[in-house]
């Protein structure tokens, strides 16, 4: 449904998107993963027809966005980075405007709004002015306007950014549900989001595609994906040595006073670690997740790309 060929965007001297090509098939949910400033938003803006590419082509369905932008735009629902809300309108007024602009007639508009406010958890707020909504609700309204006309293609720019964990879970569930019968491209810089929702990821950094594969195939690349921080009462070097003997552990690094353990995202080494501690008679004072090594992945991928050339 989405095809991108040699897409390039330069702003004066700076290359924001550098010759990228990819495709998203009908019914696929694909994650667009990259740190801030990687070119995700610029790419999505070109996909939706908001920006013209400096070079290259975008196809939405059978439409070339350079020649038949209007027909292409009709197929797309788009949630920009910040939900684009008219602060003086009510939720109902805004969604009506969005649906009518995308070609729905009055009757269909009314029916669809009644549906999406329930889908997006906005049913109790339809007459609230948008300017008075909290960030989480703004994001929901943003999602509602993107799906109100039942587009075949959904392009979501950081749909889970800036909302609380419960809402993140709800949003993920909603996207998964929506993805059953439509094509979705979503961007994020949060690794677990992608592995939870998407079948495939495109990893982008500095305007270039670093990797593109199914989630399960990327596991090698994502070996650094999970990390634990241990605080152990025991001789640091011996502890490192013993921990690195565990099968499930990929690497151990010691940065006083913590040991960091990297392990594959589909493994659970906690039990084995606890056993090792007990066997050696050391005290495990703390064991906690130490965040996601996305930066590490990018560095690694960038390194790999660099070493090829």
């Amino acid at each position, binding site marked *: 449904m989405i095809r991108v060929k040699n897409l390039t965007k330069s702003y004066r001297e700076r290359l924001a998107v550098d010759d990228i090509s990819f495709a998203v098939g009908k019914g696929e949910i694909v994650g667009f993963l990259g740190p801030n400033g990687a070119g995700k938003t610029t790419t999505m803006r070109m996909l*939706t027809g908001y*920006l013209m590419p400096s070079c290259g082509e975008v196809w939405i369905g059978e439409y070339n966005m350079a020649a038949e932008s*209007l027909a292409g735009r009709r197929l797309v629902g788009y949630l920009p980075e910040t939900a*684009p809300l*008219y602060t003086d309108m009510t939720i109902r007024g805004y969604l009506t405007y969005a649906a009518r602009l995308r070609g729905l007639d009055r009757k269909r508009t009314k029916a669809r709004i009644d549906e999406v406010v329930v889908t997006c958890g906005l049913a109790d707020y339809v007459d609230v002015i948008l300017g008075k909504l909290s960030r989480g609700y703004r994001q929901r309204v943003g999602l509602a306007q993107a799906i109100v006309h039942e587009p075949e293609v959904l392009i979501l720019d950081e749909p889970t950014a800036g909302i609380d964990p419960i809402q993140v879970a709800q949003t993920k569930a909603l996207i998964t549900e929506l993805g059953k019968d439509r094509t979705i491209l979503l961007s994020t810089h949060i690794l677990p989001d992608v592995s939870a929702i998407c079948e495939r990821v495109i990893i982008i950094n500095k305007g270039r595609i670093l990797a593109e594969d199914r989630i399960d195939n990327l596991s090698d690349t994502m070996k650094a994906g999970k990390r634990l921080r241990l605080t152990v009462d025991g001789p640091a070097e011996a502890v490192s040595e013993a921990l690195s003997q565990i099968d499930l552990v990929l690497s151990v690094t010691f940065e006083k006073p913590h040991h960091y353990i990297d392990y594959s995202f589909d493994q659970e080494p906690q039990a084995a670690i606890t056993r090792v501690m007990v066997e050696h008679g050391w005290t495990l004072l703390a064991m906690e997740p130490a965040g996601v090594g996305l930066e590490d992945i990018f560095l690694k991928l960038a390194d790999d790309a660099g070493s090829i050339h």
Partner: protein
Amino acid sequence: MRNIGIIAAKEFRSYLNAPMAYVVTAIFLALSGTFFATYLAATNYSDTSLTGFLNAAGFLILLFAAVLTMRLIAEEKKLGTFEFLLTAPVRDVEIVLAKFAGSVAVLTAMLALTLYYPLLLIVFGDPDLGPIATSYFGLLLIGGASLAVGVFASSITSNQIVAAAVAGGILFGLWFLGTAARFAPGGLGEVLSYLSLADHFPDFVHGIIDTRAIVYYLSVTALFLFLAVRSIETGRWG
């Protein structure tokens, strides 16, 4: 046409929901009403015409247009809703025409509110209705041209104040070309006079509908709406 209707209706509703249109309309009515009344008093109520109102109205409409249009596109750029609008299946020219139409509706409503001036004249005197009709036609033409300039100014920035200043600059510049024309030699003077927003208006006040004047005002309107469309298109190239 459908898209233009939808967007224009939304713009008109936004005007009704915000204080801006009411404030400028109130100021316009207060000022133009004062000019209307003081002129009548100055002539000792012998000249039952709109002259007092009309002398000020043209210029007041420029101010009105600059303030009324400043938010039309600039605000969308600031709010991020421009991305929403530009990714909807709507042509850039439809957006510009709809925004323009929304502001013309407000202008028309405001001018309609001034119709009680001629009404007063009809009730208490015997005004010449022909020139009054042509004057209102002229005011609509000046207003349309001014609003088009405002739409263009709003399309080139995300800052409403800058938009108003640019619109004001262009409009006053075009208005006072007429004054400049009087000091310019022969041919140049005529050209400047033709290009002036002000110099075509007196004909309408005197009940004359001059095709050249209509062509002039419509050309200015079309030119600035075209420039606004180009400005949006240029924005897409980042």
